């Protein structure tokens, strides 16, 4: 087989960090090569170098045997590199076709105006149709991006790259936002791409997917290549170990739960969105001290709204919720927090942390007005804030050069550890953890899972909401499945199977015997 792409001895230094250390990476024609590594291992830096966003300090890049100097993404695109970012770069109010031609518009008539001429969308539309058929990427060229589900938007991104004649496709965490069904579809598409000679670099830290899809796996750790493997010779365990650099425990070790009194009791809860549509429709459940109730479900079935209602972030239309017997329906988030509720929010960037705050400031976000941080509720004691930060950084293994480092400079895993540290540092009775490990690396996931179980064993009631079935199954003592705003089934964890839960998540209820 011929090499489509070769990166030789790539080195990139940032102040104080060696992000890439003499990395060799190659890609054969028609191959899916997975690039595996924890957050901060250097995957993104390497791909940014390839895509022209950074210049390497040392090293060479060869495309089809010819050396390539890439100054900008523009060069990269022209050379036949296409990148699908984790966060899509699409304009929601434009159609699929308009998004795809953005930047490479064709004009007809009035040619003398050059790029200013009349936009020729018909030719583009035909070309997009052709590409769709060729690679099995069904998408309506005239649909508006905002109306498309996430999986479809990703297809548009792929077509966008193909439209620019990409021969090498870089996919950055492509499955993070997809449902299991959409992931399968994506894999089919990837295979049809490689059949046509397109090569794919697949960046991820989900081990199952790597084993399922890739032809070859390269593992990065601390900016170095630590190994290359074939999927058939690897297991999740061996990959995880080489990623983290030590033995990892993939399943969470825990003793069976000893549930005690009911902490959270939810009765007929209904939440309406701004259009008056019910997103949570009459849900009842309870969580006891010392147990983990997992809420499984495909994203968008009301889990987000349920959590927002429980934490006082959105209005409850009807129904009641009780915390340790006290009615806290529509009590507001301050009161909910003070009743002893910790909340690991689904979107840590939007809700969990302030980007421009130091770690120390971020760590007192929910308790800044209480002793020891403020004795009288007005003047803050910054020494106490720093002291708290030093303690928690150590206790929760937040990797940072200083407690004054800005939250935005931390890697995703460390940001989440910061959120967890903050929430667990208060005396709590109920933990609401929403997608607590989304987008995190194996090491951080292991750490956070352990801490959640630790809280359970200390008698905290845990409500876990996750779209990851594995996470639900390994942490929960009871599992509730949410479908279209309702909990359609609650079962004991030991009675749950992947298949059974999968059916329930799709809304299919088996008749109970």
């Amino acid at each position, binding site marked *: 087989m011929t090499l489509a792409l070769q990166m030789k001895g790539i080195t990139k230094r*940032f102040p104080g960090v060696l992000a890439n250390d003499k990395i060799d990476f190659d890609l054969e024609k028609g191959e899916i090569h997975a690039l595996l590594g924890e957050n901060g291992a250097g995957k993104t830096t390497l791909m940014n170098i390839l895509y022209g966003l950074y210049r390497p300090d040392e090293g060479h890049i060869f495309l089809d045997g010819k050396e390539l100097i890439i100054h900008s993404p523009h060069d990269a695109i022209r050379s036949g590199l296409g990148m699908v970012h984790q966060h899509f770069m699409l304009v929601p109010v434009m159609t699929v076709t308009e998004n795809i031609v953005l930047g490479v518009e064709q004009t007809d008539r009035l040619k003398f105006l050059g790029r200013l001429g009349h936009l020729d969308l018909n030719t583009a539309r035909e070309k997009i149709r052709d590409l769709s058929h060729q690679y099995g990427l069904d998408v309506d060229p005239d649909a508006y991006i905002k109306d498309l589900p996430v999986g479809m938007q990703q297809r548009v991104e792929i077509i966008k790259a193909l439209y620019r004649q990409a021969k090498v496709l870089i996919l950055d965490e492509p499955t993070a936002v997809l449902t299991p069904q959409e992931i399968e579809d994506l894999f089919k598409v990837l295979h049809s791409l490689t059949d046509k000679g397109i090569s794919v670099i697949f960046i991820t830290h989900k081990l199952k997917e790597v084993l399922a899809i890739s032809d070859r796996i390269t593992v990065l750790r601390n900016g170095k290549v630590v190994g290359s493997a074939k999927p058939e010779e690897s297991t999740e365990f061996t990959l995880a170990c080489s990623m983290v650099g030590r033995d990892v425990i993939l399943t969470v070790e825990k003793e069976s739960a000893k549930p005690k009194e009911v902490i959270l009791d939810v009765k007929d809860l209904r939440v309406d969105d701004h259009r008056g549509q019910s997103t949570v429709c009459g849900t009842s459940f309870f969580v006891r001290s010392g147990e983990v109730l997992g809420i499984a479900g495909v994203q968008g079935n009301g889990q987000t709204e349920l959590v927002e209602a429980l934490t006082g*972030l959105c209005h409850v239309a009807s129904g009641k919720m009780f915390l340790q017997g006290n009615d806290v329906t529509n009590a507001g988030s301050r009161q909910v927090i003070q009743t002893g509720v910790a*909340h690991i929010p689904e979107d840590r960037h*939007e809700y969990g942390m302030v980007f421009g705050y130091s770690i120390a400031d971020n760590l007192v976000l929910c308790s800044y007005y209480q002793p020891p941080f403020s004795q009288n509720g007005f*003047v803050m004691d910054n020494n106490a804030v720093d002291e708290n930060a030093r303690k928690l950084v150590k206790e929760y293994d937040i*990797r940072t*050069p200083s407690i004054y480092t800005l939250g935005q400079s931390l890697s995703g895993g460390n940001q989440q550890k910061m959120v967890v540290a903050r929430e667990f540092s208060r005396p709590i009775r109920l933990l609401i953890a929403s997608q607590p490990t989304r987008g995190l690396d194996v090491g951080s996931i292991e750490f956070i899972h352990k801490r959640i179980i630790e809280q359970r064993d200390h008698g905290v009631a845990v409500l876990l909401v996750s779209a990851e079935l594995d996470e639900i199954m390994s942490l929960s003592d009871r599992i509730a499945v949410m479908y279209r705003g309702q909990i359609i089934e609650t079962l004991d964890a030991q009675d749950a199977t992947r298949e059974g839960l999968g059916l329930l998540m799709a809304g299919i209820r088996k008749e109970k015997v």
Partner: protein
Amino acid sequence: MSATTQPIKPKIDRSQIMEALIPVLAVITALIAGAIIIMVSQLISANLATGFKGVSSASTKTPWQTLISAYVGLFQGAFGSPRAISETLIATTPYILTGLAVAVGFRGGLFNIGAEGQYYVGSICAVFVGYSFKGLPPFLHITLSMLAGIVGGGLFAAIPGYLKARFGTHEVINTIMLNYIGVKTIDWLVRGPLRDPKASLDQTYYILDSAKLPKLLPWTDLRVHIGIVIALVMVFVINWLLFKTTLGYELRTVGSNPSVARYAGMSVARNFVVTMIISGGLAGMAGAVQQLGMNYTLKAVFATGYGFDSIAVALLAKSNPFGIIPAALLWGALRNGASLMQVRSNMSIDLINIVQALVIMFVAADQMIRWLYHIKTARDTKVVFTRGWGGG
């Protein structure tokens, strides 16, 4: 866990120092660009002058000489004598206070364009108390007049704050509109009900001696008054408020990300109002200090532009309270040095405005400065556009 904990040590990046240098470089670049404009304008007018033979009285100087006399004049006009320094400090005082006002707004996530109106409301309140309360001891009278200015500006600014908190209407629109309402209303007051009938110009009664701010150097004839000290104290107060109190913590959190603030149980609506009250209070205080320390009366149509320039001051200071001091001093010096610059070089005072505009431009578009001086964008710096401009 077997993972090793990394040593925790503070680290100052070179890039952080460069980051702080950007405003300084912006000012220097603006002065250089201003110099080029002066030279070009001189060349053009010299050529035009030779077109009309015999009327070349316009300038016998070369463009270089004009440039040097202009900038030397600017500097001497601002700092060249005790009197010049005194006048520069007087001009700096309202810039510090209004700059702080806008900076507090920025920190709280609000773009207060209404400092001009709040400045006026503060002025009229302070002047009214200053001339109508008779027989008070000076300390009490000054304090009352100042408080009147602060409360006036604060309450006036509370209106757009409340409208934003309650109805979500954008503070930029409302503060702009309230500028007109405020300035025009006060104009009417000064020409009508509050006019001093004996004065030849449209102006209020003069404030009583007991309400006048004391001079800083009473044994000299320099006009500089204790307003500058008050302004500097306010820098420390605002810095303390922003970074050492729960109020400041809430305000900054709401300003950085209202969602996080809600998550942490803070009231976003209340903080919007509080931010505007503090911001407006500072702008009102600026008006009060200016009238009680300098003018002793409020004249009609006395457009100062302090409220608008303050946006530039806050931008230049990157909303850092201590950064406000040099930024305001720069503006004060430019404002005060302009007249001598004009006299010395025989150039239009508009050039000063051009230099000011250039400073704002280079500060606002700091990518240009980065590009000119090869300063890389700090790693992980997220580009944040002013939030809320497009219904966000």
